[in-house]
């Protein structure tokens, strides 16, 4: 299905003069401020203004506000945030928890780490408001272990917030108590999956749990838990301050609000661009100065390596949850990795599969064994030793892993293979027939991880 087909695409966002994206810094607007990570800087730019307003109303009204705003989770799945909060049972006598998923590791995704470095207090204020809304006395921010500077900044922000009376007992005289712990991971991509993250936070191997029960019923320590992404929670103070109508004045009807788009790869000016949901890659590329050295775009991911690849025919797909799904992929984390015509698709897919094999947690057979076999076949193909039968085996194995694995990692591993065969099968055929030379030599396979 293409952007020009009959799929029900929304109109998307109008371009700026010159064709660029209409930039709407909301989440990123404080990033350029001097010492933006400090409490003093944050407070000078509306920081901790939303908190007293939130504490002045019934917690349940904040859940209604999030529902009205239409905010959808920014971690990739796009689940409506207010609805997720409303799933927590009330009056159940169990402690409730908020766990922030800051385990950013999806290839291409690079928004949460700079967010936590630049504006950690917005995350902390968002945590406090969210915990009040869901009546949680304890919050853990689970940050990827390798993101040391982000850990440092968020830790400092939590300390500053406690010293200022925004954390601890009886916050701002509201009677609400809250403690936040900054928790570092230890290098496992799978912990980005919310139930694996919970197991990891409980001091176990980070392996996914069977769902149901969902975390809203039995999450951290088997208690009702909300797990939200950094960008989601950081959106909360702005929504409390501006209201749902203001928030909905950006984005599309079903995907409201601004979004941080992360452009990387063969782009003249890669970086973070915040624009309304529904902005297109064509518009973002204009803002980013186009493709590097004018070499044309060959393929891109709308939201990380786990989302089916797109081609130049998808440049005008509005990048919102529903529009990208209608065009055959997933919005994911709006991690727009752009690859130019010099890049071999089978090579790129092989590298991604090495990643999925390395990060497969080993819990379920289709993913554990399947990723291993896919990698071995892909190594043969890219080094020039593949056969036509290998290509059938690849697609057959990938199709059998997708939908049959315990969690989404198995689906994600199959995705680059299935989507690249859809658009670039000829490149694989040329490799196995010898029409094109191998794209790697034996030396590169030795170092394969």
């Amino acid at each position, binding site marked *: 299905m293409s952007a020009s087909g009959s799929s029900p695409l929304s109109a998307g966002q109008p371009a700026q003069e010159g064709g660029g994206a209409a*930039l709407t810094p909301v989440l990123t607007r404080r990033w350029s401020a001097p010492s933006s990570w400090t409490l003093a800087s944050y407070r000078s730019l509306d920081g901790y203004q939303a908190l007293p307003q939130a504490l002045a109303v019934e917690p349940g009204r904040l859940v209604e506000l999030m529902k009205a705003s239409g905010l959808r989770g920014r971690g990739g799945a796009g689940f409506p945030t207010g609805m997720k909060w409303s799933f927590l049972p009330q009056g159940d006598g169990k402690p409730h928890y908020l766990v922030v998923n800051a385990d950013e590791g999806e290839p291409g995704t690079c928004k949460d780490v700079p967010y936590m470095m630049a504006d950690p207090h917005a995350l902390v204020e968002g945590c406090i408001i969210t915990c009040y809304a869901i009546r949680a006395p304890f919050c853990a921010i689970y940050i990827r272990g*390798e993101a040391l500077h982000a850990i440092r900044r968020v830790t400092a922000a939590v300390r500053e917030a406690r010293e200022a009376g925004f954390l601890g007992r009886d916050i701002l005289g509201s009677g609400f108590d809250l403690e936040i712990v900054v928790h570092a991971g*230890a290098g496992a991509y799978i912990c980005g999956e919310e139930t694996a993250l919970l197991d990891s936070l409980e001091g176990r191997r980070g392996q996914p749990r069977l769902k149901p029960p969902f975390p809203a019923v039995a999450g951290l320590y088997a208690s009702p838990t909300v797990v939200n992404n950094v960008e989601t929670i950081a959106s909360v103070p702005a929504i409390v301050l501006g209201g749902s109508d203001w928030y909905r004045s950006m984005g599309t009807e079903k995907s409201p609000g601004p979004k941080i788009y992360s452009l990387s790869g063969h782009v003249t000016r890669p970086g973070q661009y915040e624009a309304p949901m529904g902005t297109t890659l064509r518009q973002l590329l204009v803002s980013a100065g186009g493709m590097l050295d004018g070499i044309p775009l060959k393929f891109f991911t709308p939201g990380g390596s786990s989302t089916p690849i797109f081609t130049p025919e998808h440049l005008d797909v509005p990048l919102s949850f529903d529009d990208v799904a209608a065009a055959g992929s997933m919005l994911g984390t709006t991690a727009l990795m752009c690859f130019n015509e010099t890049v071999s698709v089978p090579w790129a897919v092989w590298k991604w599969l090495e990643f999925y094999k390395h990060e497969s947690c080993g819990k379920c057979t289709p993913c554990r064994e399947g990723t291993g076999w896919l990698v071995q076949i892909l190594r043969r193909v890219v080094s020039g030793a593949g056969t036509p039968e290998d290509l059938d085996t690849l697609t057959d194995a990938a199709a059998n892993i997708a939908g049959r694995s315990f969690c989404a990692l198995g689906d994600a591993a199959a995705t680059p293979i299935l989507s690249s065969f859809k658009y670039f099968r000829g490149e694989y055929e040329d490799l196995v027939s010898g029409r094109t030379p191998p794209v790697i030599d034996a030396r590169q396979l030795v170092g394969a991880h």
Partner: protein
Amino acid sequence: MTQAHQAHRSGPAEGHGVSRRLGVPEFLRTGTVFDEVTRARAAELVGRYPQSRSALLPLLHLVQSVEGFVSQDGIDFCAGTLGLTAAEVSAVATFYTMYKRQPCGEHLVSVCTNTLCAVLGGDAIHRTLSDHLGVADNGTAGVPGAPGSVTLESAECLAACDHGPVLQVDYEFYDRQSPDSALDLVTALQRGERPAPTRGAPLTDFRTAELEIAGFPVDPVTAVAGPSASVETLRGNELAERTGQSAPPMPDHHEIPPLPEKK
């Protein structure tokens, strides 16, 4: 899973007299006795969580900050602190890439070789450093822990794709690298110098970084103020400012919706 596979490729194992059985994780015995300071830190970590076992990942980072890797003695220390068996702790330690089972260099150099960084030069950077140091992936040049020793590893996506190709030294970011710049950097590390990262705190060493990751800020002023505002991070903001673009203004007043009526 991941580390069990890696174990067969680690270079330095032979030098430490470790026997290996397929699939059975083994940790080196060092005889280390963890001191009062470390025991106090361990107790503090346990106190941060509603349930003690949640402190296990930080505790493993803590023992790495003492020894530069996770030893059998480190495993036993964590187990004793939390009332777990050594088997329960080692099952966790072997799952996560950041827990090293061989002594690490003074510095850990992690080169992103995932697809995007690789296509921009990450593979070439890793190859160049591997050749220069004379070690394979996960190998250490020099005596582990001694000044100027360097462990090289290929890293998965480091969440800095707009800065690619990237590498980290002791988990601080060195952005937009090339084989030449990475070689200069590693040569400087071997000479005992500590070139400043592009984003992050002034460089210390692997063990100090592990102490911070465990949850103990080493230098809450200077380290926190280390740079982060890169050109790439601020690009959208800078363009919006230059072209006079902004989000719609917030209204002066709005009502937070009432609670829904009970049916």
